[in-house]
């Protein structure tokens, strides 16, 4: 009966990758301990560190060979033997050794990921590290503790037709849980067994101790059996008994068949899964339980409904509302993972890069238990790494520069996470040189983005670094500034429904603040009416709402409509025009202007009315249709109808584009349409459906 091992693969991959992460942390820990006290035997005085590291490698070796991942097994075997040398003190955990082992961890990770996706790994890097591992100097004792996996023993292959076996277990035989009867049964399975019991060791009945073995057996085994096969039966007990095996020769030269373990190489489809803590599941079960109670209560009411039941009905409905909200919370919480999953990679990253750049940096992490939706965490990871690299590369100064500036030699990078009003905030800050206002300004002038003699606020200048291709680094180091600019960072964050701001002071440091919604699936929105339909505006992009009259709008040089809001002038976006809606208010005063903000820019959105705040479930429009400019997704309202969710980013972008271009781009059906065969190309000559 074949058991498909593939069902265990996912777990193996997950636990192996976790194990590697543990190894990394402990290795760096060990390195620190050794560095602060090189003469001390740091390994011996911190046995748990080494044990954790060793166990992780050992488990990966065991699991990978069990589940048939040969490359991983071989490599982890080599690594494990080096770790053994470390554990014994034959090797010291200095920076060079730790570097090599960390590289080995990377290779192992690569091999595991390759195995997970069924793709071949990059063996050249692996070979290199492997030979470096093998070449690691061993100080004194030559080690034969770790041998290569021995070839299956080629024992004697001669098979004889009859064997004489004498077996006398020692008195304590039972104490290892072994049973002579089992052995006799097994021998019987090899051929035909004739048994003679030797009772000579039995004492008088009164002295017999049930826990002691007094018996011995003389047996004759007939069949084509090799000595190895017989010895195998006694494998566990060979030292606990007296054993004589004598062949009664016949001639034969049959080689013993070797049983090879099945190599189960399979393509693993990583389907994406979540490990959920039991309390979360329990909470969910409780909530569902309450929901069931509420449902049966309402059901009962419905059975014999009279108008007198109305108060009870209202109670039931409000209970239902509460249950639903709790259920929603519980379920979303299941998708939430602590940020530590991402933050864990940073100590290693900071260590490696700061070494490379010759800078001394301390990384401080706080709030890593703050939870965020799994998908968002996966997608924010690269962004955060980019920002941290930025701090390392451009922010923190070299030790010499810091000394000259009177700063402590070790720079500080801080990663802080916390929840605030429905969002998760992640701050990445450094105490480095800050954004060089003059250099950025000069570059902007050079690019024609700013005029040399105008006055700009620091914020406006800082915001420039979010423009595509904007990098003031003199040399593009291979750490950051590789063309993956801050603009990509900003748009990636925007795609997740969040935003990023920066604050910087020259000479003191820089701080990036990333705001992310708690989840991708639910949106806090404001429903607005425009034309005959309801639209949802994400609450996070709303600043305020105001009423204006027609005379408060101006149209400088026949361009976009703008209005004044305190000290600023903002463009006006008429949703009715943008979406070509038919019914619209006749004067500005009949509607409302909602001031929205996205990507650091503001605009005023003109709609008919504000309907109210509500939480909506985000449903993709792109699954069965495609992306529409100005719309980010759709949702289903309480009455079952579909409502469009507005894309603040897109609206603001369209607002800042000259009006004629915007109307064309938005209004042309071709740019958004399915292939038109037979529909007129000119939109204006045709009644657009809205």
């Amino acid at each position, binding site marked *: 009966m074949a058991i498909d091992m593939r069902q265990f693969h996912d777990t193996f991959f997950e636990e192996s990758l976790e194990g590697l992460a543990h190894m990394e942390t402990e290795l760096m820990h060990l390195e620190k301990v050794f560095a602060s006290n090189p003469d001390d035997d740091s390994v011996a005085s911190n046995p748990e560190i080494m044990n954790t590291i060793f*166990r992780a490698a050992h488990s990966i*070796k065991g699991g990978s060979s069990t589940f048939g991942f040969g490359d991983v*097994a071989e490599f982890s075997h080599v690594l494990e033997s080096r770790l053994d040398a470390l554990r014994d003190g034959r090797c010291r955990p200095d920076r060079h050794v730790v570097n090599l082992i960390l590289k080995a961890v990377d290779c192992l990770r690569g091999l595991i990921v390759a195995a997970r996706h069924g793709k071949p790994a990059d063996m050249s890097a692996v070979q290199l590290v492997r030979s470096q591992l093998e070449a690691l100097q061993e100080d004194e004792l030559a080690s034969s503790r770790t041998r290569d996996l*021995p070839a299956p023993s080629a024992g004697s292959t001669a098979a004889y037709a009859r064997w004489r076996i004498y077996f006398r277990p020692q008195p304590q035989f039972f104490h*290892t849980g*072994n049973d002579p009867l089992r052995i006799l049964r097994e021998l019987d399975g090899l051929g035909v067994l004739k048994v003679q019991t030797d009772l000579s060791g039995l004492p008088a009945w009164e002295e017999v101790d049930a826990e002691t073995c007094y018996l011995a057996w003389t047996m004759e085994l007939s069949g084509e059996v090799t000595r190895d096969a017989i010895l195998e039966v006694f494998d566990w007990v060979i030292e606990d008994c007296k054993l004589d095996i004598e062949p009664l020769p016949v001639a034969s030269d049959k080689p013993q068949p070797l049983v090879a373990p099945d190599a189960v190489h399979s393509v693993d489809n990583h389907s994406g899964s979540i490990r959920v803590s039991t309390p979360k599941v329990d909470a969910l079960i409780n909530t569902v339980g309450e929901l069931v109670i509420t449902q049966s209560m309402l059901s009962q009411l419905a059975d014999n409904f009279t108008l007198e039941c109305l108060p009870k009905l209202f109670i039931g409905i409000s209970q239902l509302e509460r249950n639903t909200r709790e259920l929603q919370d519980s379920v979303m919480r299941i998708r939430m993972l602590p940020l530590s999953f991402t933050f864990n990679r940073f100590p290693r990253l900071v260590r490696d890069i700061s070494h490379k750049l010759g800078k001394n940096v301390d990384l401080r992490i706080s709030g890593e238990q703050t939870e965020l939706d799994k998908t968002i965490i996966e997608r924010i990871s690269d962004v955060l790494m980019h920002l941290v690299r930025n701090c390392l590369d451009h922010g923190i100064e070299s030790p010499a520069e810091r000394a000259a500036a009177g700063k402590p030699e070790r720079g500080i990078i801080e990663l802080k996470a916390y929840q605030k009003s429905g969002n998760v905030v992640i701050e990445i800050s450094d105490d480095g040189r800050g954004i060089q206002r003059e250099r950025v300004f000069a570059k902007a002038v050079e690019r024609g983005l700013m005029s040399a003699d105008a006055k700009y606020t620091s914020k406006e200048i800082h915001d420039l670094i979010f423009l595509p291709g904007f990098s003031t680094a003199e040399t593009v180091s291979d750490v950051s500034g590789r063309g993956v600019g801050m603009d990509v960072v900003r748009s990636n964050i925007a795609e997740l429904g969040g935003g990023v701001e920066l604050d910087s002071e020259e000479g003191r440091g820089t701080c990036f603040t990333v705001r992310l919604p708690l989840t991708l699936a639910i949106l806090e929105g404001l429903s607005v009416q425009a034309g005959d339909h309801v639209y949802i505006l994400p609450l996070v992009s709303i600043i305020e709402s105001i009423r204006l009259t027609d005379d408060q709008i101006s149209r400088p040089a026949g361009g976009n409509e703008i209005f004044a809001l305190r000290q600023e002038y903002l463009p006006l976006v008429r949703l009715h025009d943008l979406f070509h809606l038919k019914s619209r208010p006749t004067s500005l005063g009949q509607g409302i202007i909602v001031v929205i903000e996205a990507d650091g820019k503001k605009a005023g959105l003109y709609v008919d009315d504000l309907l109210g705040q509500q939480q909506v479930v985000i449903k993709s429009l792109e699954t069965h249709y495609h992306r529409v400019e100005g719309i980010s997704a759709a949702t289903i309202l309480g009455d079952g109808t579909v409502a469009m969710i507005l894309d603040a980013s897109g609206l603001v972008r369209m607002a800042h584009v000259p009006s004629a271009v915007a109307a064309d781009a938005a209004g042309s059906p071709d740019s958004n349409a399915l292939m038109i065969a037979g529909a007129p190309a000119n939109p204006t000559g045709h009644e657009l459906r809205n």
Partner: protein
Amino acid sequence: MATILTVDDTASMRQMISFTLNSAGHEVLQASDGNEALKVLQGKKVDLVICDVNMPNMDGITLVKSLRELVEYKFTPILMLTTESQESKRQQGKSVGATGWIVKPFNPEQLLTIVKKVLK
């Protein structure tokens, strides 16, 4: 059939062993280290223990030793999961009373065969 306890700090091994033995009709209990194993065994009786050697909190060797001190487990078969190169561990295990060992890597069929032999 029998009740078997599997002790291993890696979930994938526990799952594989569990699944394999279940398919042969055995009931399987799980623990992730020696300490947990002793807790799990309280108030229960198992017919066989299969445990790994390298585990945090309480390793395999110590577990075997502790089990043999319990009256109920004086003669229960205890098998250790070891790798080819852990000869010394096997000796150590035997010296504290382990019945035998299963060498990693093994496939489900091999596991079932060994278990069948050891159980009465």
